[in-house]
């Protein structure tokens, strides 16, 4: 699969190290439909290609948005791109969040840091059909108040769509009057029914490990917990083996995994 040219329609700096690219096909073609949780391989010409989740609304005009945190060679180069520049895109790839299959349940979304980006399309999809779900609770942890992504939308969703949003930061600065502490501490008291809830979890792996423990302690079943895993990727189509995770490939069998299917390898040092 060769990368298709996409033009940057908009560049938005979200926080000091995180930005969103809004991409439209440069050749007039319609971008493929995608499901919440899927990712694209984004190619910065002459630099390299990285997997980045799609963070736009799956129901809105066929745009790809990618919210990316600058960490290394490719993402730093991506940060220097401007409106009108062209990138290559392959995708969408990977497994989605089980948005449709969770109808009738409470939904608990636990996000850490940039982990909110792959969950945003799921949030859009849930509120697009708000009446099909019970409570929708978002528990979101970031480093500091300045690192909170999508602030305007969080406020709007809370106000208009009966979404319960609890944000906590590791470090309080300035006039922050909200929660301080790690996101896992929000789980014991969050308002959802553990016996009829489905949990979507995305964040650093250590955070996900402790999140799963807390969810299980609350009584959420293993087969109702979904995690989005990250591994380095190359082909993204299940051939090269770069993203091997135990007996699975993250690009093909993931990135979204049902926890009971990876429980015996999750958190193992050598995997």
């Amino acid at each position, binding site marked *: 699969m060769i990368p298709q040219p996409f033009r940057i329609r908009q560049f938005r700096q979200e926080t000091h190290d995180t930005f969103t690219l809004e991409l439209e096909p440069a050749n007039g073609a319609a971008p493929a439909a995608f499901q919440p949780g899927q990712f694209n391989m984004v190619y910065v010409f002459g630099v390299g290609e990285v997997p980045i989740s799609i963070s736009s609304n799956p129901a809105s005009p066929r745009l790809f948005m990618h919210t990316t945190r600058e960490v290394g060679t490719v993402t730093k180069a991506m940060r220097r791109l401007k409106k009108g520049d062209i990138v290559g895109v392959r995708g969408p790839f990977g497994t989605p969040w089980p948005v449709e299959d969770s109808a009738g349940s409470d939904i608990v979304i636990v996000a*850490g840091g940039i982990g909110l980006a792959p969950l945003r399309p799921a949030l859009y999809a849930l509120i697009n059909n708000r009446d099909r779900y019970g409570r929708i609770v978002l528990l979101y942890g970031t480093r500091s108040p300045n690192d909170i992504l999508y602030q305007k939308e969080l406020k709007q969703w809370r106000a208009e769509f009966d979404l319960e949003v609890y944000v906590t930061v590791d470090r309080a600065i300035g006039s922050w009057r909200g929660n*301080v502490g790690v996101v896992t501490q929000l789980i014991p008291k969050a308002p959802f029914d553990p016996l009829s809830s489905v949990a979507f979890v995305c*964040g*650093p792996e250590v955070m996900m490990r402790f999140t799963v423990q807390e969810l299980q302690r609350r009584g959420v079943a293993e087969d109702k917990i979904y995690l989005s895993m990250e591994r380095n990727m190359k082909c993204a189509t299940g051939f090269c083996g770069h993203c091997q995770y135990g007996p699975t490939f993250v690009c093909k069998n993931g990135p979204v995994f049902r926890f009971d299917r990876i429980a015996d390898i999750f958190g193992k040092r050598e995997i």
Partner: protein
Amino acid sequence: MENMSEILAGEPFLQNMPRQHVETLAGCAQNVVFQPGQFIFREGQPANEFFLIRHGRVAVEIYAPARGAIVIETLGPGDVLGWSWMVAPYQWRFDARATELVRAVALDGQCLRGKCETNHELGYELLRRLSSVVAQRLQATRLQLLDLYGAAK
């Protein structure tokens, strides 16, 4: 009006605590209210009680010269505030400040220490619960120290 034993029995911290222990605890407990901004206790002061928060939010802070008050964690309804009353020299290690109107039950530490000395079953029950809270907070602090979202993985 609910009596103190009923209030205590409904607190998550004392869930499934044998009734006779709850009655004993009720003898050392009183309802307290703190206004927004009011200090509940301050570092260095004698730690003579602990609190079960029923309403509102509390910031646990440490004061650093030139940086001011740094919030380490926030606690809310259902949380336990303070365990220095159990550990010599019984002095608060942090400041605790109500950031909203706080209603809580205060348990008199001196009274409890006395009761735990004579009633070891009660002492064990209480310590078991408190150590679980301390372990959870320690785990949370360790995760906070990892700076999970800030630094590259």
